[in-house]
C-alpha cells in the first residue's frame, strides 16, 4: 500500500523542495506546522484593510464636499485620489511580493498552498478605488488565519469580507421592502452573493437548493453591506423586513438579523452537500483531476464527523494511500511553478519581498507579467469560480513557451549565483529525478539550458 513520502509531501502538498528546508517528516508534522504560529506572516506583512480605512473615509468625505465646490477644488480632490490609487498599486505589488516571499521561505509550504486553494475557492477580484489592489489583503485577513479551524469560521470570514461583498455586488443589494428601498425607490435585491455562496462556496451546483432558496437567502443577506471605513456592517435600514426561510432554516425576523446570517452560514458549513462538494474539490486540487472515489468519501465522512474541522479533513486526505500515488497527476499552476522554481534556485525570500517594494516595476516585469502570460494574472482569476484545475488548461504551446522563457530569464536575476544543474535537479526533485532526465540535464551545452531542462521537465512541472 502506498504511503506518506516526504518528497511528495513537499512537492504535492507544499510549495516545492528547497535546499534550505527538510521535506516534511510525517502527516503529523505537516499538521503541526500548519497549526503553529504563522511567523512568516509577521516577517513578510500584508497591510490590513484597516490601514486605509481613515484615508478612504476622508476621500469620500472630500468627494461629497467638493461636489458643490469649484473646479480647482475638484481637480485637487481628483489629484489626491490619483495619488492614493498609485500608492495602492504599489501596495498591491508589495503584497504580491510578500505572498511569494512567505511561500519561498516556508518550511513546507502547506499553509501557503491551502491559502491559495481557499482564496481560489472563495475567489474575489478587488474592485473600485479602494479595494482594487486588496485581493491579497483579503486572503491574508479572511483566509490565511482560518486554514486549520472549522470551515464555518472560514466561510464567515471569507463570504462576509468587504472585498467579497464588493466583488459579488452585495454592497448594492437592499431588501425591496426595506426602509432604504422605500426612500430611494429604484433599488432592490441583488442575488449574486447569495447564489455564489450556495453554488460555489458551500453546497455546490449539484447541491439541493432552489431558486426560492437563492431569493430567500439574498433577502436574508440584504442588510449586509460596507460602511465608509471599508468595514462589513449590518444596515437595518437596508434589510428586508420579516423572516426568511432558506433550506429549512427560518430566520428570527427580529432586529439584528446579522446573527441570523451567521447562523445560517454555520448550517451551510456542515451541510452534507457542502462536505461532498468541498471534499471532492480539495482532492481534485491536491491529488488528481480524477480523484479516487474512496479518497473523496473518506474526507467527506471526516467532514461530517467533525462538523467541518478542516485540519481533520486534511488529515483524512493526507492519510489516504491514493494521496501518495507515485504518478504526478496535477500540473503546477503558475504561482506554484514560480515559487517552487525560486525555492529550487535558492533565491532568498527576503530579496523577493524587498524587490517588490523597492523596484516594483522590474518586479512586475520579472514575475507578475510572466505569470500573466503563463495564464495566471495574480489577484485576477476572472470570475468567482476561480482558476481552472485541469492540466490541459495550464499547458498550451503559448504558456509552455512562457514557462521556458521565464526559467531562462530568471537565471539572470541580479546577484543570483549561477545554478549548478545537478544540484538544482537534486534539490528540486530528489528521488523523482530519473536517469533519463539526468542524462538530458548532463547533455545540455550550457548551465542555463540544463537548469531549464530540469525545471521544465514534466517531473518538475507536475506534482
Amino acid at each position, binding site marked *: 500500500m502506498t504511503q506518506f513520502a516526504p518528497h511528495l509531501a513537499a512537492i504535492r502538498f507544499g510549495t516545492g523542495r528547497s535546499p534550505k528546508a527538510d521535506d516534511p517528516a510525517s502527516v503529523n508534522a505537516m499538521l503541526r506546522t500548519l497549526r503553529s504560529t504563522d511567523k512568516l506572516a509577521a516577517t513578510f506583512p500584508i497591510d490590513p484593510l484597516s490601514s486605509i480605512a481613515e484615508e478612504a473615509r476622508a476621500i469620500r468625505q472630500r468627494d461629497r464636499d467638493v461636489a458643490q465646490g469649484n473646479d480647482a477644488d475638484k481637480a485637487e480632490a481628483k489629484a489626491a485620489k490619483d495619488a492614493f490609487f498609485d500608492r495602492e498599486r504599489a501596495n498591491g505589488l508589495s503584497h504580491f511580493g510578500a505572498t511569494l516571499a512567505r511561500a519561498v521561505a516556508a518550511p513546507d509550504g502547506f499553509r501557503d498552498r491551502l491559502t491559495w486553494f481557499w482564496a481560489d475557492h472563495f475567489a474575489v477580484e478587488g474592485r473600485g478605488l479602494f479595494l482594487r489592489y486588496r485581493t491579497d489583503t483579503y486572503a491574508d485577513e479572511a483566509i490565511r488565519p482560518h486554514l486549520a479551524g472549522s470551515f464555518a469560521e472560514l466561510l464567515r470570514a471569507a463570504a462576509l469580507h468587504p472585498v467579497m461583498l464588493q466583488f459579488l455586488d452585495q454592497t448594492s443589494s437592499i431588501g425591496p421592502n426595506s426602509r432604504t428601498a422605500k426612500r430611494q425607490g429604484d433599488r432592490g435585491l441583488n442575488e449574486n452573493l447569495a447564489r455564489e455562496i450556495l453554488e460555489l462556496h458551500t453546497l455546490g451546483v449539484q447541491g439541493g437548493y432552489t431558486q426560492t432558496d437563492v431569493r430567500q437567502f439574498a433577502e436574508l443577506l440584504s442588510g449586509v453591506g460596507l460602511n465608509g471605513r471599508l468595514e462589513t456592517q449590518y444596515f437595518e435600514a437596508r434589510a428586508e423586513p420579516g423572516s426568511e426561510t432558506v433550506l429549512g432554516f427560518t430566520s428570527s425576523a427580529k432586529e439584528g438579523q446579522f446573527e441570523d446570517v451567521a447562523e445560517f452560514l454555520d448550517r451551510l458549513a456542515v451541510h452534507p452537500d457542502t462536505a461532498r462538494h468541498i471534499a471532492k474539490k480539495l482532492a481534485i486540487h491536491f491529488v488528481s483531476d480524477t480523484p479516487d472515489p474512496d479518497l473523496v468519501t473518506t474526507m467527506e465522512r471526516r467532514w461530517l464527523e467533525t462538523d467541518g474541522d478542516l485540519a481533520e479533513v486534511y488529515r483524512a486526505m493526507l492519510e489516504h494511500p491514493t494521496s501518495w500515488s507515485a504518478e504526478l497527476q496535477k500540473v503546477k499552476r503558475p504561482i506554484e511553478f514560480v515559487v517552487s522554481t525560486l525555492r529550487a534556485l535558492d533565491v532568498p525570500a527576503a530579496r523577493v519581498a524587498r524587490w517588490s517594494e523597492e523596484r516594483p516595476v522590474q518586479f512586475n516585469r520579472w514575475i507578475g507579467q510572466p505569470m500573466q502570460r503563463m495564464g495566471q494574472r495574480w489577484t485576477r482569476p476572472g470570475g468567482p469560480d476561480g482558476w481552472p484545475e485541469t492540466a490541459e488548461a495550464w499547458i498550451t504551446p503559448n504558456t509552455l*513557451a512562457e514557462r521556458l522563457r521565464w526559467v531562462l*530569464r530568471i537565471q539572470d536575476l541580479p546577484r543570483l549565483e*549561477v545554478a549548478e544543474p545537478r544540484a538544482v535537479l537534486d534539490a528540486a526533485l530528489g528521488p523523482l529525478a530519473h536517469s*533519463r532526465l539526468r542524462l538530458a540535464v548532463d547533455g545540455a551545452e550550457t548551465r542555463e539550458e540544463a537548469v531549464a531542462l530540469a525545471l521544465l521537465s514534466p517531473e518538475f512541472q507536475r506534482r
Partner: protein
Amino acid sequence: MVMNKQPKTRSHISRRGLLTSGLAGCCLAANPWTTPITMAATPGDRRLVVIVLRGGMDGLDVVRPVGDPAFAAVRAGLLDGPSGEPLDNFFALHPALSKLMPLWRQGDLAFAHAVSTPYRDKRSHFEGQDMLEAGLPQVDGITKPDSGWMNRLLTMLPGATARTGFSVGREGTLILKGDAPHTTWYPSTALSVSGQAEALFELVYQEDPLFQAMSKQAFQLMEATDPDALEPGTPGHIRVADYLAEQLLQDTRVATFSITGWDSHRRQAAALRRPLGELADTIMHLQGRLGSVWDNTVVLAMTEFGRSVRENGTSGTDHGTGGAMLMAGGAVKGGRVYGRWPGLDEADLYARRDLMPTADVRGYAALGLGAMFGISQSDLESRLFPGLDMAGTQPFLA
C-alpha cells in the same frame, strides 16, 4: 556587411540593459547610457575579447585538415557539401566562415589547432567550461571555482575600474567572476534554445503526452512571441557586438561573451550553420565598429573541448578532446594556422577517438596577456593559469 560605420547613438534604453548585475541593486546607475563615463586611468590601449564557444566546437570541421590523408575517410558524410575555403596547403575553412576570408588575407585572422584545456576523459560540458573559464588545471564539477582568469587579469591591471572588464549575459559569469569589479550587461534579445536543447527536451517529454504535444509549437512560439525582445529586427549577436564595440571604444579593455549551439551530435552540417554565422558576423562587426582600435585588439574564440574524430551514427560528432581556437584582430599575426599537427591515424588519436592535443589552449591566452598587458611569466604561470605548460605554443601576436 557593416564596415567602417560610426557607432550609432542609441536614444532608448533597453529594459534588460537596465538590469545590470555584478553591482548590487544599482541598475540605473550602472547603465552605460545614463551614466556619464568616468574617464578613469585605463590600463593601456590594448583590447582583449574572449568569445566562449559553448557546447564543444568541432575544430576538425571548422578548420579542416584536408591535407591529412586520413581526414576524408573519417569525415566522409560531413564533407559531402560545399567545400571550404583553402587556408594554406593543409587546412581549409568551413564554408560558413568564408565571410572571414578578407581578414585572413589581410593577416588579421589566425587559428591554433590541436589545442585543448587540461581537461580529459569525462567530456562534460560544464566541467570543461569551468576549466576553460577558471583557467585551472582541474575542477571537480561540484564546487564552483571562486574566480575566472579574466577577473584575475583585471586584478593585475593598474587603474582598472568596474568598466574595464565587461561581460554580456549570464553565461559569461565564471570567466569574469572574482574580486575585481566588472560590469555585466544583459541584452534584451529574444530567447531561444539551441537545437541540442530541443532534442533533449524531446527526450525529457517522451513519456508525457501533454508536454510532448505542446512543446513542438512552444519552441516555435518562444522567439516569435517574446514580449521582452526589443528591436526584434536586429539579431541578438549583432547587438552584442555593436554594444561591446561601443564599450571597447571607451573604457573597456577586456570583454567576454558566449556563442552557444556547438553541441552538434545530430545533423552537424545544419546545426553549425547558425553558430558559425554568428561567430563570423560578430567578428566582422567588431572589426567594422572598432575602426583604428581594431589594430590594438585581440579576439580569442575558445571552446571547452573538440569533438570525436569519427562521425557518429547521426551525421554528427560526439564530445572529444583536442580542437581549434580562433584568434582575430589587428594585433594578431594572422594568415596562419598555429600548432603542431598530431595526425589522424588511429594510433595518433587521444584514447583512439579524439584529436590529440599538442598544446594547452591556455598557453595562447597567456601569450596574448603577456604581450598585451605586460603580465610577467611568473604571474601567468602561478596566478592566471596554474599548471600551465607552454610546450607547443607558438607566438601569434604581430
